[in-house]
């Protein structure tokens, strides 16, 4: 029995190494000197450790603007998907209404819908309405992407808060809205915050729609994709690293909710 455990641990460590290695490598590339990119053979540890490449990356015109656009888009996405998704999640959790199963099915179906087929006509519509190449347009499409998760995750969060607490507040004189604000919201806040982070990361990472929908107001992903061919290697590596870091930090912050969230979102 002990032997099996040891082998299991070794295998698990090997898998973990496989997962972490590419992330480490891109970080190592980002923290090397620019010339180190052309070294051969490459060493595993950057020597010397340098912020030269990162500094070069941020000095390129367009990078800060793209980063700012990505932040604005992701922020809007968080806001919109929370506003639209949280009430719907509450409805799914607390009420049994006709059409509930159909609504749930619709939400699940949109999860598996190819974004490719949506972005193109939406881009045309945005052109028609004069909204093309705006952060709002990208945020709307990203909200469509993040909304199903927002609904499902908030439904699960509200399900985890006993109805009795609200009902007790009612018997003590609270209106339903007051009970919601003072009892449910504080309890739901960590879970809802995790859902918000999920929406943020989804928007920050998205590439196809952002590339289709923007021209001058590019997000970071759209910008990096558009310069992929011509950009020097250090630039690409720094860009890739910078793309990864915020997502990883945020996900680490909500790690306790991560597994239940991924599980719910994928059911």
């Amino acid at each position, binding site marked *: 029995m002990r032997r099996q455990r040891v082998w299991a641990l070794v295998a698990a460590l090997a898998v973990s190494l496989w997962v972490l290695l590419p992330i480490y490598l891109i970080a190592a590339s980002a923290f090397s000197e620019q010339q180190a990119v052309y070294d051969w053979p490459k060493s595993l540890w950057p020597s010397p450790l340098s912020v030269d490449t990162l500094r070069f990356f941020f000095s390129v015109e367009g990078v800060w603007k793209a980063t700012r656009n990505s932040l604005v888009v992701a922020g809007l996405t968080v806001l919109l998907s929370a506003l639209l998704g949280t009430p719907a999640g509450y409805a799914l959790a607390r009420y049994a209404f006709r059409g509930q199963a159909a609504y749930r099915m619709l939400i699940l179906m949109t999860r598996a819908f190819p974004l*490719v087929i949506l972005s193109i006509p939406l881009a045309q519509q945005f052109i028609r309405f004069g909204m093309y190449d705006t952060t709002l347009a990208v945020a709307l499409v990203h909200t469509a992407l993040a909304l199903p998760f927002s609904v499902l995750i908030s439904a699960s969060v509200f399900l985890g808060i006993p109805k009795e607490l609200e009902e007790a507040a009612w018997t003590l004189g609270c209106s339903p809205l007051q009970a919601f604000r003072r009892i449910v919201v504080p309890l739901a806040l960590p879970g809802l915050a995790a859902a918000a982070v999920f929406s943020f990361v989804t928007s920050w990472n998205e590439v196809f729609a952002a590339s289709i929908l923007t021209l001058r107001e590019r997000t970071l992903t759209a910008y*990096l994709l558009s310069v992929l061919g011509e950009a020097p290697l250090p630039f690409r590596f720094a860009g890739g690293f910078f793309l990864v870091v915020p997502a990883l930090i945020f996900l680490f912050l909500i790690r306790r909710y991560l597994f239940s969230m991924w599980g719910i979102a994928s059911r």
Partner: protein
Amino acid sequence: MRGERWVPYVLILPSLLFLALFFVSPLIEAVLLALRSPVGQWTLANLQRMANDLFFPEALRNTLLLAAVVVPIQVVLALSMGLLLGGLPKGGRDTFLYIWTIPLGISDLAAGIAWFAIFTERGYLNSFLNAVGVLDTPALWLAYDNPLGLFLAVVFAEVWRATAIVLVILVSGLQLIPKEFGEAAEVFGATPWQRFRRVTLPLLRPSLQTALMLRTVLAFEVFAVVFTLAGRNLPVLAGEAYTWYASFRNPGLAASYGLVILGLSAAMTVVYLRVLRVRREVRL
């Protein structure tokens, strides 16, 4: 207040309207874009042009081939990882699961760049092969005239990036299987393999179905990983859609490619629903 029957409908209304506007309407519009000329006449010209395009057969073939290779590997891998998790001590299990789901938070663009750093001529793979004495001079894995190398590079990158998607679904499903079933089988003398095949696998069917459907649909959309590793040297459907829209300014043709992706996704979903049909008794 809870008795008010209209409350839930009011609560879901905003999201419904939004989804109608941003899913249903674009879907119809996409069909219209593909089947109409720029002046509004119904025509098959877009579809014909796409079918006759130099890159269409390649794009279709590459997309299908990639999905056919990557998805089964990922299912087997994720299943193994999920079962492996079961054999670990409790505390370790959470940590390992967290590490193994990290790729879920990584953009496919970033994943492509990371693997590009590995496969590029002066990259980490060649450096490693040199260090262990296999190579003297760097090998060109990502050369434009090395389609096999490009394909394999994308396979590696995709397997790394997206196995976690399958893993999460399968682990959720594994957690739902009561331990008593496996223990009972053990009492009756079943080997671990028999326990896996006769107890675990059938009970995992719903999760397998979900995982396969989701992962396959996503696989047909593969885009940024291919672009970073191969540019347009490895045509794929989504990449062609992007190029026709962004570079060649032809929404009709781009929408046609989108419809092909949609058609493939719908077809595979139906196949999975049929082949992996879950009998009612098996649902937990």
